[in-house]
């Protein structure tokens, strides 16, 4: 074989166009997703991307609350369910429910609980995020399902966890961010007019779901290749914040130091921060997002790069003063260095700054908005963004999976479906229910 360059080789083995000709790694695994909002749904979603059959169980008619969540109440996909043709599903639901089958069951009703036990008997696992103990009380928790199916892997995901002093507290993503410590180290300091800030994405939810999925697959590995046993797992979303920021905890524990926020600069490296350029890249746009001035990450923390950068912006005095990294990484030094770079960039767009820095061999990355990411060929070429021909909603731009596998890659088949769209398929296939029985359950409000 003629030698293929490494780049060509990667393009070939990771080519998103070839994904559907490759096998799915979790084929044959079945999970029930009795989840709402983002933390639980995304956890099950990552398994569905890998080929597990994930059955999302929602309350009939309106489904779960995340369906009714969308920016400024504007974009929606219709219908929410066959019962509510005039209600749409908001885009908040979009990122966490790909590839799943949609079943509606009212867990409160005994017939609904019986359906759950029938499904639990045939499933590898359950992801669930009702208040701790609720499913146990309904007879469909781990203690009951593991009697029917000892191999079941039951992952409860939630805010504070089901035991301990805070066990009764409700939580959401930003509560995890706020009370877990994330806010305290993000945003500009007070003397720069800032305050503790959230990560705009629901990161403790979406990333917490990733942690849950990792633990589930590890437990499948242990079950199928080592022990044969199921498992009960509890993921606490607020705990995720402490795990995330373990270095801050170590500094507090050793030194009593309480790490603070430092805006767009970096506490470990200098220069390694985001600066404002003075000009917008799209001065004629009607969109205020594009009229904003541009921002760019400038990274020149080595002595050689820093000297080059200071020469470029004609600040030879700073090059001398901060010749060593130990000097320029001090907080007070950064307060002098970054404004000098911004002064130089004030008559430029982020693209102009990028071109000049790149020519000088200085590492940089313009701050992209979601349009610039969506239209950049890099991300679509790699399958990190994709256009889905969705069977329910038509053409949709979607995020791709978070990682690439050469032999058994994750993939997206559809975005999501209306509430209860697969009732007949799932109840027929797994519970053996007849058309008449399904119609009766629907009339009784069980499904």
């Amino acid at each position: 074989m003629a030698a293929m360059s490494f780049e060509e080789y990667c393009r070939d083995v990771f080519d998103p166009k070839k994904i559907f000709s490759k096998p799915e790694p979790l084929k044959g695994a079945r999970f029930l997703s009795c989840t709402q909002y983002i933390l639980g749904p995304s956890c099950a979603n990552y398994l569905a991307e890998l080929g597990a059959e994930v059955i999302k169980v929602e309350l009939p008619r309106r489904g779960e609350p995340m369906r009714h969540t969308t920016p400024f109440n504007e974009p929606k996909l219709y219908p929410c369910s066959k019962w509510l043709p005039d209600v749409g599903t908001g885009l908040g639901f979009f990122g966490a429910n790909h590839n799943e089958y949609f079943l509606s069951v009212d867990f409160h009703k005994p017939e609904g609980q019986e359906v759950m036990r029938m499904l639990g008997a045939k499933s590898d696992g359950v992801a669930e995020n009702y208040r701790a103990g609720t499913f146990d009380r309904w007879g469909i928790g781990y203690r009951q399902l593991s009697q029917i199916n000892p191999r079941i892997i039951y992952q409860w995901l939630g805010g504070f966890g089901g035991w301990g002093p805070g066990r009764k507290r409700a939580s959401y993503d930003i509560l995890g961010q706020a009370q877990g410590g994330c806010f305290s180290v993000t945003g500009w300091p007070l003397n720069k007019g800032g305050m503790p800030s959230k990560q705009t994405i629901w990161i403790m939810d979406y990333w917490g779901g990733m942690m849950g999925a990792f633990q589930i697959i590890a437990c499948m590995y242990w079950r199928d290749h080592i022990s044969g046993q199921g498992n009960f797992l509890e993921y606490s979303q607020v705990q995720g914040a402490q795990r995330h920021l373990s270095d801050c905890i170590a500094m507090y524990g050793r030194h009593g130091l309480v790490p603070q926020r430092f805006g767009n600069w970096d506490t470990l490296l200098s220069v390694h921060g985001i600066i404002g350029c003075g000009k917008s890249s799209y001065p004629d746009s009607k969109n205020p997002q594009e009229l904003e001035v541009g921002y760019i990450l400038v990274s020149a923390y080595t002595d050689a790069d820093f000297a080059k950068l200071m020469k470029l912006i004609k600040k030879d005095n700073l090059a001398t003063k901060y010749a060593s990294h130990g000097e320029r990484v001090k907080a007070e030094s950064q307060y002098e260095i970054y404004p000098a770079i911004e002064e130089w960039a004030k008559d430029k767009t982020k693209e102009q700054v990028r071109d000049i820095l790149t020519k000088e061999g200085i590492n940089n990355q313009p701050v992209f908005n979601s349009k610039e990411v969506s239209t950049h060929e890099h991300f679509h070429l790699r399958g990190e963004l994709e256009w889905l021909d969705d069977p329910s909603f038509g053409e949709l731009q979607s995020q791709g999976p978070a990682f690439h596998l050469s032999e058994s890659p994750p993939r997206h088949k559809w975005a999501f479906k209306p509430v209860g769209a697969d009732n007949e398929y799932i109840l027929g296939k797994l519970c053996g229910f007849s058309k008449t029985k399904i119609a009766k359950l629907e009339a009784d409000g069980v499904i």
Partner: protein
Amino acid sequence: MSKNYPVLPWPAVPTPTPDEVYKGESDAAKEYALWLEANLRQSENFKKPEALNNIRVLDCTSMMIIGHWCSSLFSELGAEVIMVEPVGGDPLRKLSPFGRKEYMFTDEKTGEAVGPRFLAEARSKQSVTLDLTKPEGREMLKKLAMHADVIIENAPPGQWDEWGIGYRQLSQLNPRLIYCWVGQLGQWGPLKDKPGNLDPTAQAACGFVHGTGAPVAFGGTPTRSGWWMCDQVGGTGAAIGIITALYYRERVSGRGQFVEATGAAGVIRILDYNWGWYGVDGSIRPRYGNWDLAINIYAVNPCKDGQIMVGGGHDRLWFRIWRTVGKDRPELEQRIVEDQGLKVVTDRLPHYKQVETYTTLCDWMKDNTRLQGESKLQAEEVASGGVSFFDEVCEFPHYKYRGHVEVIDDVLYGKVLIGSSAFIGQKTPGRVKWIGRPTAYDNEDVYRRLLGFTKADMDGLKKRGVI
């Protein structure tokens, strides 16, 4: 007393006891919680098996957290993780906030100072050194690869391939090997990583920075995450990819595969509706500060002594929030519940409605501290909590009780407070065994155990600068 003991006593306030936590509850009410405690308490972890203790991972990454984070998830679940570092150690070891040496951690044996960010993700791992720029070092890596289930590396794109130790070559030697490359933007494609790309590169490139922080009208700018967030999200994606490949190897193929994960891909995956929204109508997601574009009430706003989070997107909680406010300020509750434009959940989302809502809420919160506001709202079962700083986080009773924060009394580094493993489970929980190792601490053990090197071999390698 050794200098390695913490300056502060921790916990400063004693951790609550189970009797205090469950005081006054009926047996029925606390039965499930006590069952959970009996099955999940982290103090029992070391009596239980580990899910991944037949897996060996070589973490050959440096200067980024993405690879170290990924391998931490494996070491927490029991895999043997060996950090393969350049001679002299991963440069990340030497970094501490603002370059302050006093924030570093020193081990009693070698006296080497290590920065907190590296040490936080060195948990339960061994450290060896190996110079891969030398042919002899690469030959050693090939031998190590024969003993590995997983290799993680983050060299510039194609570097290892050029050196003859990339996936194409190592998979010939060890077909069962799972080979994972991690980085910021990718090892292929028009924006593939350039040398020097580190975490905020992915944050800036993936749309995260543009969307984080307050709008211009509120005096804000695009804002980066305060930590290397893309590395941690991307590293978690890498870990899912690797564990999936391991599962697939055992179950189906008998062979390893090539895994690639980046900070950008990880965060793009979780940037909720950015992409769908642009696809539907061309909208560019704006920044919205500490409010939420898609849920009202769901925000962090100022109060008397800081900021407080209040969340209640649907009606049940919405009215409870205003009932809480109304106990102190009836006119504020009245203003909101009588507003016809705020009756329906979805009608509350437009910007001017959010301004109205939060202005009214802040009118009440300005007279309440975080603790007062949180206590009043929680009495109505509303999700709420003050923005906490790390002194408060480390002393938070719930976290202490559950072991979210724990002291590792390490044989080398002394007592170190850490965020413990988040993998809580009945049968195979995650755990931290030791805090980390000084550079090259395990050369002797690993090279003797895996490669059969003698003392003389190792002396020679050391002399030639290979290890």
